[in-house]
């Protein structure tokens, strides 16, 4: 980021030289983030489209796959992420009001909830890994009694269950990577807020950070019902 020292002719320390004023810079950065989120929507959209094509083609395999998921962990994770979304929004609000302490507190809370989400995710991943549900060479699923019965009846669902798990690991993995990047950005924002860079006339970076974080939350809002609550999973 540009240094904090005073620019030659009385500009705000963070006004880039090629912008007329802070308003133009702020609008440019928010428009850029929304543009970037458009690419993210289509990035996740691509894999969701493939997910839906196979969910329509193999509903029983998808139900079987969802049956393997621990819905309690999924639901808990959704709540944790929604809380982190709330604290992120409050962080942006505090930055707008100019209270650096409030911003730092809220950003730290967001980081904590984000990390809790990743922690729960790791637990789930470990659980699936030990159950042999990792697709590819390590694939020897230890299934529940109901699942084993269904598989003996329809053995051709085996590879399709593995296909579901590919999408499970793929989509949640992609989401987790975005969470880790978000956490890194959060730490940077906390550092900048602690040096009270932000105030009513310059809160762009926190706003943009908020947009990114809320987008990652929206992706999970869709992933939770898609991966955990598939009709026919819990009969």
């Amino acid at each position, binding site marked *: 980021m540009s240094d904090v020292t005073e620019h030659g002719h009385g500009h705000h320390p963070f006004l880039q030289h*090629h912008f007329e004023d802070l308003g133009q810079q702020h609008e440019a950065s928010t428009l850029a983030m929304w543009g970037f989120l*458009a690419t993210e929507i*289509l990035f996740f959209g691509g894999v969701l489209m493939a997910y839906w094509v196979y969910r329509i*083609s193999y509903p029983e395999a998808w139900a079987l796959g969802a049956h393997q998921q621990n819905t309690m962990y999924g639901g808990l994770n959704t709540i944790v992420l929604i809380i982190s979304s709330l604290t992120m929004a409050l962080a942006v609000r505090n930055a707008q009001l100019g209270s650096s302490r409030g911003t730092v507190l809220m950003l730290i809370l967001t980081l904590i909830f984000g990390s809790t989400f990743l922690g729960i995710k790791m637990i789930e991943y470990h659980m699936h890994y030990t159950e042999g549900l990792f697709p590819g060479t390590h694939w020897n699923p230890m299934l529940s009694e109901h699942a084993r019965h269904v598989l003996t009846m329809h053995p051709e669902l085996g590879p399709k269950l593995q296909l579901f798990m590919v999408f499970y690991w793929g989509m949640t993995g992609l989401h987790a990577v975005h969470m880790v990047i978000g956490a890194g950005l959060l730490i940077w924002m906390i550092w900048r807020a602690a040096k009270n860079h932000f105030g009513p006339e310059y809160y762009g970076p926190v706003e943009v950070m908020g947009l990114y974080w809320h987008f990652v939350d929206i992706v999970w809002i869709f992933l939770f019902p898609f991966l955990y609550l598939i009709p026919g999973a819990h009969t």
Partner: protein
Amino acid sequence: MSTATPTLLDVRFGQGVRNYLNEDYGFFSWLLTKDHKRIAILYLISVSIMFVLGGFFAMMMRVELLTPEGDLLTSDTYNKFFTLHGVVMIFFFLIPVIPAVIGNFILPIMLGAKDLAFPKLNLLSWYLYMIAALIGLVVIITGGVDTGWTFYTPFSTQYSNTHVFGTTFAGFIAGFSSILTGLNFIVTTHRMRAPGLTWYRLPLMVWALYATSIVILLATPVLAITLVMLMLERTIGVGIFDPALGGDPVLYQHMFWFYSHPAVYIMILPAMGVASEVVAAFTRKKIFGYSFVAYSSLAIAFLGFLVWAHHMFVAGISTYSAMIFAFLSFCVAVPSAIKVFNWTATLYRASVSWQTPMMYILGFIGLFTIGGVTGLFLAALGLDVHVTDTYFVVAHFHYVMVGGTVMAYLAGIHYWWPKITGKMYPEWWARLAALLVFVGFNLTFFPQFVLGYLGMPRRYHAYAPEFQVLNVLSTAGASVLAVGYILPIVYLIWALKFGRPAGPNPWGAVGLEWTTSSPPPKENFHETPVVSWDAYDYPAMMKAMGETQNV
């Protein structure tokens, strides 16, 4: 307004006249530059190298096809060459060329801005491009890839033992370089226009680059995720596209073409922007139906997303969906027709100069028309069954990409060369090169239409003997075309040193870029310009620019 015309001495040694080239010197002043003009020149060099590399593969293929039996190259080598010709030419030349080379340089100046919205992201875009190109070179040196630039599964995921992973990873990285450029252009066009520069006063080049950026922004991510899924499937083989494990290879084709058809509009839209600029400048007239041409760019950007499965009419999609895509493919042809007819109508009662950029663009309009109408053959379902995957398709897309984008790129390079380097290119050499390119191009690709309808499939290393004569004609044309392409590289570099100094407005054209000095100063304008004239409004422009122009 602009400083006095620089004397020969100043320009030769650059003292006295401060511009972005002699602003500061040194290795890092180029490699760590944040100036959009220098990044454009970095792109110009790397894109030209890639063009020569792609051209080499094309030449080897054409020489190989001189004889029916594949005797120059083994079939594996030939398969690698046509794949690499496709990958290098599309991902590393056609997609970045006009936006990143001409767009990077000209867009901020046309908007009256000091620089793009995010200079650091712009430099990152070039570095991502270089990383992708480097990975591509490593792949080429260590054995190449033989799946075709389309990487169709299950061949690419299970049956090919070449560097499919490396190539798809390079394509993945190049995608992000393209996204960053697109994002930069959209934000700059929206947020950083000079005072008085309303949307309808914008040059049509800005409209075209804006529409291209929308297509880049919304299509490239789907390519990224498709390539990620391809790499995943190739490494752990879990059946995303493998029919034995429940996957569907046709799904890959859907997702690949969802990007790859809009990608051809990423390639042609900027070319249309250059065409509008050059036609306006060399007829000294407003483009006929300015708003129609501007909105047809946006129409192409939107409709371009709805037509992708016309690449898959015989691939096994349902008959009814084929009808939907065919109808939409005809709809997307209308805006292109509007543009061609509007350019032609602009020539009426104009003052048409036959300088090199205009020669290239007159050729562009002709060749793009042929390219466009042969697209109608391919969109007509019954006909497509016979001609798809044959040399008819090869001829069609080369007419649009080489006859269209490359001709317009050469026009753009010649048109803005005085502004970029402050030197004029040698006019008569340039006209000769333009003629050679036009003749060589037609001799190369028109016979391929006939070959295509005769039924010669594409990507054939050896072909049936009765196709030989037309292939020999095509190879002859390719050598003329190669000479036509080498000439500009030679005399443009020669012009760097020995070219006649070009004043701020060598063509007497209208546009913000012609009101600043050539080459422009680092911050483009000494003070932010105020625009009071409409786009290409020559009478008003002449008054506003006063007599300093050597019209």
